């Protein structure tokens, strides 16, 4: 393991330098909370954030993007549009690093999605080791996302007045050499790092009453569980949970035509399986009309189906859906309730 040391006072300068060459997406304050959003001044970067409303997913799968332009002036033709630019995601917690690995697999499988993948190719990830739980809703320890061994270009750990920097990729190494003033880690740095890391684990507690590895098997027997009807009665079908989820990637495609009808654009937008029309076909048949069925769909995707399809967890334990839910639907409580009634 090759570790470098980035003094904290050197961070603003690093941020400033990255801003010049990259779209820099980092945690910044939004009212009393935080979001991942473009950073336009080093002072906006809040590496002391706990949890963000929106995950760094916004940098890789934006809420809205153009995917094609249709020129309708003469002989019509289609021009694919890939909206990508050199980007650095700065300060992602490890749950979000795991989430991005899931998105990578989803957009690579079978028919590779050039829009996501080109953005991903042009994106470097500087992640941040979590030393304490974001809040009472975090269950990263249960989901195995409390740390990450891969999926980042550079990984920072706060050891007091400096960060240790673990180089994950060659691109990360090049970035570090070009933009950051660092020094090699000393034995003392390593001692502090080990102390910080061994002190962090006890601060995180398990919130699931069972091993998350049992989730797919547990859900397999819970399809007809009464809890879905209960959740269906409460759910407002607002879609907040899927908007804030770092592993939700379902989308809609919308074509819109210019007023003079000379061109049209195809736009991809986030969509949500929690909305009534999500599974409705043109003839009117709706295959998940009941909110209970839509809630079940979400929990099964998070706890079972994405895992089975992509071999990596569909829920990273960030707890964002819990915080966003207006009627306090809590994924930890749901999974524990199912486990408790088995």
């Amino acid at each position: 393991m090759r570790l470098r040391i980035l003094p904290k006072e050197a961070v603003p300068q690093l941020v400033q330098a990255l801003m010049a060459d990259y779209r820099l997406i980092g945690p910044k304050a939004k009212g009393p909370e935080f979001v991942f959003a473009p950073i336009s001044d080093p002072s906006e970067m809040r590496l002391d954030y706990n949890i963000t409303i929106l995950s760094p997913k916004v940098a890789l799968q934006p809420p809205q993007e153009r995917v094609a332009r249709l020129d309708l002036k003469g002989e019509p033709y289609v021009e694919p549009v890939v909206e990508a630019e050199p980007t650095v995601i700065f300060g992602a917690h490890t749950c979000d690093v795991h989430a991005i690995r899931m998105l990578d697999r989803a957009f690579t499988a079978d028919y590779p999605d050039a829009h996501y993948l080109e953005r991903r190719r042009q994106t470097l990830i500087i992640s941040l080791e979590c030393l304490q739980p974001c809040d009472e809703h975090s269950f990263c320890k249960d989901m195995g996302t409390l740390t990450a061994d891969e999926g980042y270009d550079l990984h920072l750990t706060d050891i007091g007045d400096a960060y240790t920097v673990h180089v994950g990729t060659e691109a990360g190494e090049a970035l570090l050499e070009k933009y950051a003033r660092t020094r090699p880690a000393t034995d003392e740095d390593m001692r502090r790092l080990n102390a910080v890391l061994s002190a962090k684990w006890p601060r995180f507690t398990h919130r699931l009453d069972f091993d998350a590895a049992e989730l797919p098997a547990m859900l397999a027997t819970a399809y007809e569980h009464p809890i879905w009807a209960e959740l269906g009665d409460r759910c407002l079908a607002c879609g907040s949970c899927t908007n804030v989820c770092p592993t939700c990637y379902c989308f809609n495609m919308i074509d819109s035509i210019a007023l003079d009808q000379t061109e049209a654009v195809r736009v991809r937008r986030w969509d949500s399986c929690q909305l009534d029309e999500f599974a409705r076909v043109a003839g009117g048949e709706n295959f998940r009309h009941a909110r209970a069925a839509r809630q079940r769909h979400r929990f099964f995707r998070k706890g079972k189906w994405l895992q089975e399809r992509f071999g990596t967890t569909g829920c990273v334990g960030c707890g964002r859906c819990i915080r966003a839910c207006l009627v306090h639907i809590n994924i930890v409580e749901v999974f524990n309730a199912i486990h408790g009634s088995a």
Partner: protein
Amino acid sequence: MSQSSIYAPEFARLADVRPLTELEKLFTIELPGGRSLGHEPGQFVMVSVPGVGEAPISITSSPSRSNGTFELCVRRVGDVTNALHRMKPGDPVGVRGPFGHGFPIEQMRGKDLLFAPGGLGLAPLRSLINQVLDERGSFGRVIILYGAKRPAELLFRDELEQWAAREDVEFHVTVDRGDESWTGHVGVITTLFPRVTVDPRNTVAVTCGPPIMYRFVLMEMLGKGIPETQIYLSLERRMKCGVGKCGHCQINNLYCCQDGPVFTYAQIKNVPEAL
């Protein structure tokens, strides 16, 4: 910046538009350079009307009759399909695909085939039926039980007459409600099943129709002893990508666009949202 995108359609041209019923038209589409679509029966394409949007439509023409074009039988029911119905020959339409798993015709060779399309469900089955008829010698019996709500809703009437006239096709048709001119059978599609006896182990059954129909048609097919692995269905779902990404067509952990739209009954019988 420009590169290829799985969501960017290719422009093709409407070669012909023919009304079939009050609600359905048959669109013949020509790809640039007269290129063949290269589809299997049962696959679908994503069809765009420029500036309006895109919809998944099953291909109704047989690969054996491609001739540089392919056909879609489209009911006008939503924005895209209503816009498509207003188009005329020569107009451009966007096409992506073909996508999905179609009918495994190779596994059907040598077998007796029992087709049971209901209403617009004939559209995807017609692709397979016509390929089978074009290679008639390599299949056993061909039985077609077709049901529609009213005589005026019967699709492809000229072809139905040809099928009825052929000695090597056992064709039965019914309507839920007749009219003054209708002299044929009246009753739902399941009332046709007692008319045929099959050798269940050597029979492959294929059905497509409105969701409500499946339960009853499946009961008839299973009742004849046809194995679950030899019963094929083509399912309809909302789709925005056609390539397993957008999530709309998901049926539990199956993606209709990729794992389907053609499934065996064995594949989906324990998937609660499938039927």
